[in-house]
C-alpha cells in the first residue's frame, strides 16, 4: 500500500524515512550509513520544492494522512541534509559524547 500522495510515488521506496518524531528521525540518521542517506537525499532533495508548492493547498492543522507522511519524509530529508551536504558523517563533528533531547516539538 502506498503511503505517500500519488504525485510523489517516486519517493515511495524511501517511505521508511516518514517518521513522526524528531527522536525517531535522529535515531535513524545515526543508525544509517552515508550511502543510504545519500541515496535518500538524491531522490528526495530534487522534490523538496515540489512538496512546498504542492503543500500550499493544505491547512497545516488538517492534513490528509498521505500528505502528513510526506511532511515527515521531508523532515527526515532536513535531518540527513547535514551529513550529506557538509559533515560526511551521520553525527555532527566535534560533538564527542554531548547529547540533547528534544523533549517537546510541534508534531505534524
Amino acid at each position, binding site marked *: 500500500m502506498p503511503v505517500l500522495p500519488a504525485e510523489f510515488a517516486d519517493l515511495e521506496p524511501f517511505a521508511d524515512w516518514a517518521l513522526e518524531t*524528531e527522536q525517531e528521525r535522529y535515531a535513524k540518521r545515526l543508525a544509517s550509513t552515508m550511502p543510504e542517506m545519500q541515496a535518500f537525499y538524491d531522490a528526495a*532533495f530534487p522534490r*523538496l*520544492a515540489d*512538496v*512546498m508548492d504542492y*503543500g*500550499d493547498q*493544505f*491547512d*497545516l492543522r488538517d*492534513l490528509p494522512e498521505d*500528505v502528513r507522511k510526506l*511532511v515527515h519524509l*521531508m*523532515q527526515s*530529508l*532536513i*535531518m540527513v*541534509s*547535514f551529513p550529506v*551536504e*557538509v*559533515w560526511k558523517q551521520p553525527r*555532527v*563533528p*566535534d*560533538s*564527542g*559524547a*554531548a*547529547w*540533547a*533531547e*528534544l*523533549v*517537546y*516539538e*510541534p508534531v*505534524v
Partner: protein
Amino acid sequence: MAHFQKPAAGSWTEHYPDLGTEPVDYTDSIDPEFYEAEREGIFKKTWLYMGRVEKLPKVGSYFTRELPVVNTSLIFVKGKDKVIRSFHNVCRHRGNKLVWDDFPNEETAGSCRQFTCKYHAWRYQLDGELTYVQQESEFFDLDKSLYGLKEVRCEVWEGFIFVNFDNTAVSLTDYLGGYGKGLEGYPFHEMTETYSYRAEIGSNWKLFIDAFAEFYHAPILHQKQAVKDEADKLMKVGFEALHYDLQSPHSMISSWGGMAPPKDMNMVKPIERVLRSGLFGPWDRPDIEGLDPLPPAVNPAGAKPWGVDEFEFFPNMSLLIWAPGWYLTYTYWPTAVDKHIFECNLYFVPPKTIRERLAQELAAVTVKEYALQDANTLEATQKMLETRTVTEFPLCDQEILLRHLHKMAVDHVEEYRNASVAG
C-alpha cells in the same frame, strides 16, 4: 583592525573600568564552597525565569519545576482570578510532595480544579488556600486558614514567569531594568510554536553561559557546519560583535549574521537555499505586528547587517532575539558545582503552511547541532579547570560578557559572605 566601531576608551572592556583587563580566575567554577555560596547568595536572592505564560492557558492550568539548586520543587498555577501564582510543592499536613505523577522527581503539567494530596486527600484551592481536611474533627484546634500552601514571590514580565525566594528583593520590573523596559512590546505572545531541548551537562553552569555569550569561537568550533568557502572566509575574518552593553547584573551582545537572504547563494547549503532558512531562522519574516519598528533595546547599534541580540539576564537566563522574527531562551540549572541541566526553548509564529513549517524545522534542527558542538567542550574544560594547573585565563574584548558574568557571580557571593559575617 576593528570592523565595527568600538567605544572611545579603545575597547568594550575598558569602557567599563570596573571589569579590569587582567586574566580571570576560574576557581568560581570548580570550588564546591563557592557553589554552596552561589546557591544562597545568587539563586535565593535573584529573579529566576521559570517558563512562559502560554504553558498556563486557562484557569486551573499548572506545571511544576524541580529546582535542586535551591532545594525545592515549585507549582505554578493560574487561579480563578487569572493570576499566576507559585507555591512550594509541599502538603502542609506531613510534607508529602503535593503535585507529581509516577515519579516524584519528574516535572509534570496539566489542569485541575484544586490540588488534592495523594497521601490523606487534603485539598487546596488554586490560590493555595486549604479547603478540606480528611476527618478534620480528629485534629486539635486546626485553623485551616493557617495551613495554606507556602507561596513564593512570582511575577510576570512580557509573558515570562519569574520567581524570587527573597521577599526583600526589588520587583521583577526593577530587576530587569533597562533591558526589560527596552524589550517591552516585542511580540513574544505571537510566537507560540515551541521546540524544547534539554541536556545534562558535565560542567559548572557558568561555563555554558560563557560558551553562548561569546561568538569569538563560532568561526572555529563550528567551521564544519558551513560550506567550505564560507567556513574559510569566516575563519580568516574572525568575529567582532556589532555592539556590547552592560547593565549590571545583566548584559547583552548584538551581532551581525543570518544573511536573509544571503548576497551570494553559494555561501549557504543547498537545503537552506530551497527552504529559505538556516541557523538564524526562516529568512522571510512572519506577517505580524511588532517587528517593525523593533523595541529600542533590540539592535542597539542600529546596524543594517544585524542578525541576533543575546540578553544575559543574571543569573541564568539567556534571551536571543533573531532578526527574521523569532526568539529562543536558554536556562542553565545547576545540580552540583560540576553539573547542570541545560534547557533551550525555540519560539516561532505558528506556521500556516508546510513551506513555513519546514523552514522552522531546519532552524530547530540546526540549533541542536550547533549546541551539541558547544556542549562538547564544556566537560573537557571543567575537568581541566579542576586540575588547578592553571587558574587564571586571559579573556579578550569579544569575551567581555564572560568577564562580566564571573564578576557578577563573585560580587554576589562576596556580598552574601559579608552579610553572613556581619549578621
